[in-house]
């Protein structure tokens, strides 16, 4: 009966896998983008609902190991919900975007689901093999997603860059796994932990292996000094995909890394802690400094994500320093949730601005409005000028998102930062906290620049008469994101209560 109950516990990946198969068949027999879109949205929503309201036999909170590879526990369920939420928002907004930029294509949703499936596997993995499986599934589908709009050289450049560098990073990661295996003879997280606790042999191999794993993951999370690809890929990828990359990919990888870090008891290594602390400080400071002068919103968000992942690394050091490190996991969960919803808001704005009802449309010979397929995305900071007066709701969305990224109270980002400060102070990590304060201080400047740009007078060149209605899908998405960022920022208690029940 293990298989049956296992399938119930792994309901989300199963539903998504079935959806992938169905969409694949649908594409083979009846190409219709709208149907694919509806199918993908419905399946993601169904998977999410099944996780939130579990049917009997699953999700009762106790961890359920399914084969040595995967586990279904409260931690994986929480991150699965988070990932599916991000997938759903991305998928909902992608349709309008694709219509204007890539033509109507069905495979986009297929790739999106594949990538999401990789993320779901990643957060449930308890074994280096499933870890790698999830990571690669997530990554390979992403390469194609990034290059999806065939027009223009930016997406292609971004995809190639990501492909090559990510491939190299995966190779380094794999080498790290191999060294760990050579030293300990096991690939399961928990066994690694037991062996590490009991043996002191092969220290050099282990250290090398761990360092390589962190380097490989550091690339995927774009931590300094492995961050070089981030701005180019962020800028080149189509906005919905950038949003997906920034939220699903990063949160899933970080969640999986955290599980590896804790289950394999890597936190016992002081030298590793120092290494993580250095990565964190470098990411916080350099990420924020590089973001200062960016005039492209996507590049700005890219560097800002470098900084935010640096903030998050603090929790790993905290975990290694505290006797009762529960606060560290709670901080990771809250911060990632905050970061996901906030980043989604920023990229949702970019996606909506790039969608056909908003961008300037030319007229074809017959006088019908056609989308300008080759138009660059309006992602320069000057494109936002006057948004406050042109599109108050969208401006509100981006303003709250920026304030949340900057960690201003009443937004979810502030509670996230509050968690980091609380955790850091609990572990008395003064140097890291100083970097956090300085980084946040620098961050305010560029986040506010975006807000300021929106309040500035719109330039004459922007034609106020172009069709500026948001599509009927975008409106509820925008309001859900606004409400989410504010609600979790003002009344975080119920969410915190849920999070404190999550044990890793």
């Amino acid at each position, binding site marked *: 009966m293990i298989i049956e109950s296992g399938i119930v516990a792994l309901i989300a990946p199963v539903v998504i896998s079935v959806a992938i198969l169905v969409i694949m068949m649908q594409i083979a027999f009846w190409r219709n983008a709208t149907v694919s879109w509806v199918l993908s949205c419905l399946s993601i929503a169904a998977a999410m609902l099944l996780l939130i309201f579990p049917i009997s036999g699953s999700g009762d909170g106790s961890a359920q190991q399914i084969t040595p590879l995967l586990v279904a526990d409260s931690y994986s369920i929480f991150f699965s919900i988070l990932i599916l939420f991000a997938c759903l928002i991305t998928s909902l907004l992608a349709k309008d975007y694709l219509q204007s930029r890539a033509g109507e294509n069905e495979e986009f949703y297929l790739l999106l689901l594949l990538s999401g499936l990789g993320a779901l596997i990643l957060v449930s993995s308890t074994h280096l093999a499933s870890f790698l499986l999830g990571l690669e599934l997530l990554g390979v589908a992403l390469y194609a997603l990034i290059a999806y709009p065939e027009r223009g050289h930016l997406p292609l450049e971004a995809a190639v860059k990501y492909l090559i560098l990510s491939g190299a990073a995966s190779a380094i990661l794999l080498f790290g796994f191999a060294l760990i295996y050579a030293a300990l003879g096991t690939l399961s997280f928990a066994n690694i932990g037991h062996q590490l606790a009991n043996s002191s042999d092969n220290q050099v191999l282990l250290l090398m292996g761990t360092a390589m794993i962190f380097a490989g993951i550091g690339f995927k999370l774009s931590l300094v000094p492995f961050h070089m690809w981030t701005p180019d890929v962020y800028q080149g990828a189509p906005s919905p995909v950038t949003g997906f990359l920034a939220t699903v990919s990063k949160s899933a990888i970080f969640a999986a890394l955290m599980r590896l870090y804790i289950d394999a008891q890597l936190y016992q290594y002081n030298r590793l802690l120092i290494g993580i602390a250095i990565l964190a400080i470098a990411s916080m400071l350099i990420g924020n400094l590089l973001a200062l002068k960016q005039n492209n919103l996507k590049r700005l968000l890219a560097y800002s994500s470098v900084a935010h992942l640096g903030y998050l690394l603090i929790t790993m050091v905290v975990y290694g320093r505290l006797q009762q490190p529960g606060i560290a996991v709670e901080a990771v969960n809250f911060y990632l949730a905050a970061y996901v919803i906030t980043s989604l808001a920023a990229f949702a704005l970019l996606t909506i601005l790039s969608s056909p009802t908003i961008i300037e449309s030319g007229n074809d010979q017959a006088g019908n409005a056609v989308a300008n397929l080759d138009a660059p995305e309006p992602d320069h900071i000057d494109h936002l000028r006057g948004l406050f007066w042109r599109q108050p709701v969208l401006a509100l969305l981006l303003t709250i998102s920026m304030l949340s990224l*900057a960690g*201003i*109270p009443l937004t979810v980002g502030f509670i996230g930062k509050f968690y980091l400060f609380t955790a850091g102070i609990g572990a008395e990590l003064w140097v890291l906290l100083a970097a956090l*304060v300085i980084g*946040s201080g620098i961050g*305010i*400047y560029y986040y506010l620049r975006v807000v300021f740009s929106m309040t500035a007078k719109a330039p004459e060149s922007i034609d106020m008469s172009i069709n500026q209605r948001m599509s009927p899908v975008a409106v509820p998405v925008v309001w859900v994101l606004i409400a989410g960022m504010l609600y979790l920022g003002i009344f*975080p*208690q119920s969410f*915190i209560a849920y999070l404190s029940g999550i044990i890793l």
Partner: protein
Amino acid sequence: MLLVNLILILLIGGVIALMSERMGRNWPRLIALLIVLLDLAYLLSGLSAIPAEKFSLTPAAGDPASWLMAYQADWIPRFGISFNLAMDGLSLVLVVLTLVLGAIAIISSWNEDNDQQGFFQANILWTLAGVIGVFLALDLFLFFLFWEVMLVPMYLLIAIWGHEGKAHASMKFFIFTQLSGLLMLVAILVLAKIHHSATGVVSFSYFDLLDTPMSQGVAHWLMLGFFIAFVVKLPGFPVHTWLPDAHTQAPTAGSVILAGILLKTGAYGLIRFTVPLFPEAALNFAPIAMLLGVAGVIYGAILAFAQTDFKRLVAYSSVSHMGFVLLGVFAWNSLALQGAVMQMVAHGFSTAALFMIAGALQQRLHTRDMTEMGGLWYNMPRMGAVALFFALASLGLPGLGNFVAEFLVLLGLFTVNPWMAAAAALGLITAAVYSLIMMQKAFYGKPDESRKLADFGTLEMGAMAVMIIGLIWLGLYPQPVLDMVQPVLDSVATQVGVTPISWRAGS
């Protein structure tokens, strides 16, 4: 619940003002004014229900009954954070000041042709809501929240409706105050952690955190965290540099709120939090703090004298005047503290009025440069007379509120440190110099008879009359305000454990 409603009325009022723009351009300002007046009336009606003897009670920690009003509700129990508002005499004085100056700020921009009136007035109301929250919050997390949140609408006021250099000024304002706020957040969290490890209770309540045992070294650092945040806002020397920029670039209503109210949150924080939470560390630090105060008094005055920009002059004069507040707080005796509170109120009125005049001048002349003014008394006699009154108030003319305030501070300071008092007294002389120079450059001199300028109208004169009466009242009969805050000062003084020198006009 009254305290919560006080904030809610302003918050919701802001939304109504925002919406009302659809009915017409002139609706938002009217609605905003009515909402502030409604809030004030609501507060006063609530006060009339409180028995008179309660005003002389010393508010005690942990005893809500001894406060004028209190409200508490659980908010984030995970971290022991509660939604805890309470009002005593000090907060009451400052909240009333906030609402009165809020109404005046709205009147000051009555005739300005700002775009997006609805959003403009909404931001004013939201700033007021945040400031009132700061004055009422007695949970340190909640206090920090209001402290940061009130900056956002203020930032928007400067960034959207400011003058030529608004981008730079608004950014500087926000970064200065935010970064210092983060230091305070760290200090708050460390304090809460020390309290947690000492008692096992997680709490951010002001009352719980008082008397937290800690070593002198730690207390010193934490005190500095709070001190820096408050001194930046005050603003004290040498972290005042954001103020002249922000003031110069802000729209008139923004300047009025910034100078009249926002700066007082810094002073309030020093009295309410910095000294009571870390009494010994604060008193050890007092000589340095007082030195900064004296430096601010003199440096601000000298710079004010050197300005040709009307608003910059008033802004630097604020640095000088708020130096007295810093001196008063850290002299830490009854006289000096009363002086500091008086200065907060009196400076609120006099500076708000001067900024309102500066805004009116800019609106009429399209310049703030005093070298291009001169002889304006001829063109606008009413404005000239009013300006003269507030210039005299600002230089500390006996009989007006500012004199009482600065005199009390100097008197209290003298018993603690005569040399500092002597140095600070120079501020009174220099104040006369820059105030009169301002009058001379702008309003006296050879008039340009061809200039046709509209004088102050009835509404503006009404607002001015409120402030004039306020200052005269504070100058001639300051006892009611002193009586109002005395119990509070007594209670913080007992908290600190240093016996204040008792001095009351009546006894």
